[in-house]
């Protein structure tokens, strides 16, 4: 499929990145803190404020290594990428499909069906592993959400417009996030989910979700670009200047698998404590720098987990799934497939 190379995450807010020979060097206050050979890297994600040297930017651009700059909260700021040859025919097919309201239906259907099914899997796994120990009413609530997600997923198969599918996606999100608190089992009041909030995240659970979604967004965007697709022109998400709509589309089905599940396990295994987060005066919550490191290690490990891809029937690390999906989307747009087989996780 594609070799899974490393992504270098630079967590220090004061880090400066520069090139030394064929290496990237991380410097803080003029002293070297780490280095990595460029040929081992697929991407660089930096949370630092100072930035990177033009020589490094150029070397990464040439090697096809994308550098994303995020602010310390994980919010996307900018990215640098090389002059890709891209694939103009595929892009044209993508644009034509995006301009046609019915053409996008099989794509959006695949995304929404897979997302609802994957949200259902998150709930099913919780029921399977902890169903008996859930406090009063918890089990029933999860079972009800599980049924509702099954129902939504089935209705996506018959939905004939993107608008209907958007509605179904909203319905699934309601059912799923409506019981998300039941999936948190520590009883710690610091980790109570107060409904999805993004700008800013208003509780610790949301801060973590947003953080992982930003990382997933980086990966999805790179995967789309690597396969010649334009990350800005989406099907479920309509065009908006500056928005990577197709990357958001591709993320949808992967959120429950990669991000949500990891948030739940980090909290439930008590790998994070209340003071790993800072609550700002205006109510926004952010992950601290030291916790960010631990969380990134967990993210990298999660991406190394092997699974069998449902459509290809081939074993691959979870981190390569975004590439597999970008490839399937490209094959659908080029006409090899009569729909988009979303990633259905079991």
């Amino acid at each position, binding site marked *: 499929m594609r070799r899974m190379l490393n992504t270098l995450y630079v967590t220090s807010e004061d880090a400066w990145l520069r090139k030394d020979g064929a290496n990237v060097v991380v410097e803080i206050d003029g002293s070297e803190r780490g280095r990595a050979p460029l040929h081992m890297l697929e991407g660089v994600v930096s949370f630092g404020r100072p930035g990177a040297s033009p020589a490094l930017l150029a070397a990464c651009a040439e090697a096809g290594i994308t550098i994303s700059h995020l602010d310390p909260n994980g919010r996307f700021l900018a990215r640098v990428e090389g002059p890709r*040859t*891209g*694939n103009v025919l595929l892009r044209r097919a993508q644009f034509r499909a995006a301009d046609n309201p019915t053409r996008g239906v099989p794509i959006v*259907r695949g995304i929404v069906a897979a997302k609802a099914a994957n949200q259902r899997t998150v709930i099913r796994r919780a029921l399977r592993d902890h169903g008996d120990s859930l406090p009063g009413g918890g089990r029933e609530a999860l079972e009800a959400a599980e049924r509702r997600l099954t129902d939504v997923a089935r209705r996506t198969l018959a939905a004939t417009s993107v608008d209907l599918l958007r509605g179904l996606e909203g319905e699934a999100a309601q059912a799923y996030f409506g019981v998300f608190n039941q999936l948190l089992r520590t009883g710690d009041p610091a980790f109570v989910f107060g409904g999805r909030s993004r700008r800013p995240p208003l509780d610790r659970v949301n801060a973590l979700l947003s953080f992982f979604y930003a990382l997933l967004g980086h990966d999805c965007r790179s995967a789309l670009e690597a396969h010649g697709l334009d990350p800005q022109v989406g099907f479920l998400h309509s065009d908006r200047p500056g928005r990577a709509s197709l990357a958001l589309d591709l993320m949808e089905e992967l959120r429950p698998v990669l991000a949500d599940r990891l948030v739940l396990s980090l909290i439930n295994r008590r790998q994070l404590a209340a003071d790993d987060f800072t609550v700002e005066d205006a109510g926004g919550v952010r992950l601290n720098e030291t916790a960010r490191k631990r969380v990134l290690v967990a993210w990298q490990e999660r991406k190394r987990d092997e699974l069998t891809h449902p*459509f290809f029937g081939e074993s691959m690390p979870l981190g390569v799934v975004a590439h597999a999906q970008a490839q399937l989307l490209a094959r659908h747009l080029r006409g*090899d497939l*009569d729909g*988009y087989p979303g990633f259905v996780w079991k």
Partner: protein
Amino acid sequence: MPASPIDRETEEALIPLSALQHYLFCPRQCALIHVEQLWAEDAATAEGRLFHDKVDAGRAETRPGQRVARGVALRSVALGVTGKADVVEFRGRDHLTPFPIEYKRGKPKAHRADEVQLCAQAMCLEEAFGVPVPEGALFYGETRRRQGVAFDEALRALTRQTADAARSMIASQATPPPVHMPACRRCSLEALCQPARLEAPPSVARWLAAQIGA
């Protein structure tokens, strides 16, 4: 006797010489590379490696008193191709008969892709110099064997036919579906082509329904 310029449209319709080989190996591979531009970088690296091998082998092949040109840029309007010859020796008493030599990393193959590529070079050379090019040679790195190739009418016909087919496929911008075959294991594009899965893909709607358990 340099080749004369051609009009822009004809020039833009030229396809790379390498497309002929790709087409003979597998038309889908040809389309994935030349229409969809997949792994274009990989092809470039492979060509880089090829060049190294050939420089080594080239030394042994060169004979004194013979004019030898390397990396000769070529095209043929009749075939509609453009590309490069590794090495062209100029033979005969006046050093006027071009003799193309192509270096291959592997070993001689059952299919005629290498001969076709060489023959296409010969036909380009005939167009450029206006003299017949009756033969050339393939040099295989793995066996370190040199194999003479006569450009007979059958090989020329196959070359013309392949060039036409590849050119019209590339012009149509359509990628043919994969045909899963033993050669796929040797194809650098297998992971991106997914011949086993896409040869006869399932209806995605039905597949999704089965995944969801509708």
